[in-house]
């Protein structure tokens, strides 16, 4: 019975996400996360790579003194109704040329007191040999 289960599981793994088994978990070279309530910062949100025309603009909105070469990927969450949200990177994996970035956005704790501005969380990252990126957020 157990042998059958192992065989079925192995077949599933190879058919569904066989590459994950080979995925390498990596650590970003640079990482900066925070939240910002500037409208221009979050009106266009989501993922930005260094090839996007808004990449440097978004960096500059956070800190114009940031060294652009320190980052090659930006993720900006959808705006939230208040401050107190914290975005963190749970893990980053790489399989072949595809990076998978797992974000977790923590809500303010119940009953906490937060700024009453529309706010978005963000993370700026630098990942070696970044090519394709898939973002997961929870």
């Amino acid at each position: 019975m157990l042998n059958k289960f192992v065989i079925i599981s192995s077949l599933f793994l190879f058919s569904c996400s066989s590459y994950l088994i080979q995925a390498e978990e990596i650590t970003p070279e640079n990482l900066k996360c925070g939240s910002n309530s500037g409208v221009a910062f979050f009106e266009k949100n989501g993922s930005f790579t260094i090839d996007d025309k808004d990449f440097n603009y978004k960096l500059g909105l956070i800190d114009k003194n940031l060294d652009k070469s320190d980052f090659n990927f930006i993720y900006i969450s959808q705006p939230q109704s208040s401050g107190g949200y914290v975005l963190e990177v749970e893990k980053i994996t790489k399989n072949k040329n595809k990076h998978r970035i797992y974000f977790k956005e923590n809500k303010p704790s119940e009953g906490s007191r937060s700024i009453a501005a529309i706010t978005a969380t963000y993370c700026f990252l630098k990942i070696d040999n970044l090519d394709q990126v898939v973002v997961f957020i929870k």
Partner: protein
Amino acid sequence: MKNISKILAILSLPLILSACGGGGGSGGAAAGGVGTGTVTNCTDGGGSTHKDTEYDYFSSVYHSLKPLTAVCASSAYARGATGDGIQVAVVDTGIHETHTDINANMIAYTNGSDTVNSDNDASDDHGHGSHVAGIIAAEHNNSGGHGVAYDAEIYGFKALNASGDGSDTTLGNAFGLIENIAAIDIVNNSWGTNADCTSASSCRAGGTTIYDNWEDMSQLSTPKITVFAAGNDSEDQPSLECQTMAYNTDISAVSICVVAVSHSSLGKDGGFLASFSNQCGKAASYCMAAPGDRLLSLRHNSNGYVYKNGTSMAAPMVSGGLALVMQEFSSLTPAQVVSRLLSTANDSGEYSQTAIYGHGMMNLNAATAAVGSLQTIGGSNLLDDPSTSYNDLVNNTFTSSAAFSNALTNALAGQTMEVYDSFDRANFETNVSSFFTSGSYTSQNTVENHMARLQPKTMEKVKTKNLYGNFTVETDGNYIESSMFQSAGDFLALGFNQSTNSFENAVDPLSGFFNDSNFGNNYLVNPYFHAGSGQDYFMSFNSNSSFGMDTFTNANGNDLGLAFNLNPLSSTSGDAKNAGDLQIVLGTNYEQNKFLNSSSTGVFATGDMSNTNFTGVKYKKNLGDDFTFVGSGFAGYTHIDKASNSYIDKSTPLLTSTFTLGLAKANFIKKNQRIGFFINQPQRVEDGSLNLRVPTSSDRGRTVTYSNLNVDLEPDARQINFDIIFQKAVTETSNLSANLTHVQNGDHSNSSKNQNFISLFYKKTF
């Protein structure tokens, strides 16, 4: 093998789950405005006239600041309200205190002002607090716009961390610090808790340190006004802090909850409640709306600017508005400042929905204008004392005599006093001169007045004569316009509504030619009997040609005058007669609520017994057959009776004078032609002053301070009239008159232009 299989099976489960599971996106702010009504904008009282020396509020710069336009801020600026002298605490993520657009308005960080890191450096590591502070008090320096209260000062407190999050401890401790800083007037809180409470105790349970210190701040002898954002959860109830206002009257008396609207020119919601904003809900009685969508304000990490959305941005709009009202009205308590801003909000149309907008959209034009009627204060210097009396402005008047109106105008120029709104006794500044109207001599010489005197009368004049004397009655319909009785032998005359001229002409042969009223000026008559009010009574008694007595009363003004006339040269002796006719007049005149015919009401009223003692001389001498010299001079000494509660506090006696010199020639060129020339100085104050004690300031303790204005009543010039009069009797029933008048320093004012009048009249009696 079995073991390997087990390990593979266990390891594969999470991989299966993670590999096949998708990432979830988080929800954004809820959409959908609630408005269905008609959005009405406040009416800005600015217009093209609302400018100051530094800045035109209607320039393109001002219009680029749409949130300020939406609340009609320029009206407040035009009235001088800029937030100057008001201190606002910003409890937030800190402030970029060196930003060049706010550094001049920053108060140095106080000890412990960073309650997050427990240090004294309340710098901003997020950006939210800097933006909020800029909305309140970014400088008015033509750079990047300015705050609502651009001259207010900012105390920065960092009680929210770099994520925009705070705790009961960090925020409550900030309140504790603020409680002990007396200078802070307003506390802005662009933060909140997304929770509900249903009683004071349950609200307190949401954060005891915040609640207790907030309550303490609200219970100070001079409580601090707190402003809270309603929150951005698109809910029908605001934040926990706003809900707290509904359950604590000490707090609610000095607190405002703020929801956000998207002004039509700023966002898609067209002036309705912003899609993200909570509604006022149970805090509606303490709630109002302000622009909170796309407000431009300060960045925290440069000298630049950034747009932000939220009730966080609406709250500082209201904090700034409170600062303007607070500065503008020093007489209002903090609770009254709150009440005024709420009461004057635009609550029409869409904004009439109380559950959504509370009192409505903030309107700084209405908030800095009178709500009720403006009134003067009397009876007390305490605004709320039961013995304090108030009088609408129209009931406070002073119509001054031309004898000193020029001096009064000069003395009161630029002088201001306070008046108070009947709504809440908010103090308004007005020019003292606005209550004063000047009498004018020169207006007597207008063509219109000449013509008015010559108008054919519709009245019927009846003259009768009997054993006792002459009766003259002028009627208009059934009404007696004037009447006069002149006894046989001229020893008694009684008159009603007769002019002083006709009265004297009847009994006094001195006047004659020069008192012809056709020429307008009663140059030779007693100037202290102020006839002309419409119900004037005269009586003259002449015991003989050397002694007489005149009485005068004015029914409207309840004046009472008495004069004794001595004619020392009058004699049957031919030698004495050649010396001329001399009349010496001694008299007194009491005026009720007047002096020198200057009437006043309300807080400028004078008492019942202002009194002028006067003396006068009239002289007439015939020089040959055709020439007659006439001269007269009067001087008076007036004591002003002070009325209770009057701003006319005290005075020195007023010395007044008037004189006339004239020469007439009969048979000028031809028979039946007369010509006269005379010089006259109308009544003028030669010396004297009065002291006006007017309210000039008031404080939040509701106490009024009065200031003294010493008014020297001597005019800066002396009016002299030069008249040439020519008369020709054309027929028995018609005559021709010509008059040339030159008026120098009209109304005793050296700023008056000299005036010249020429008139030519033909008058025929049918």
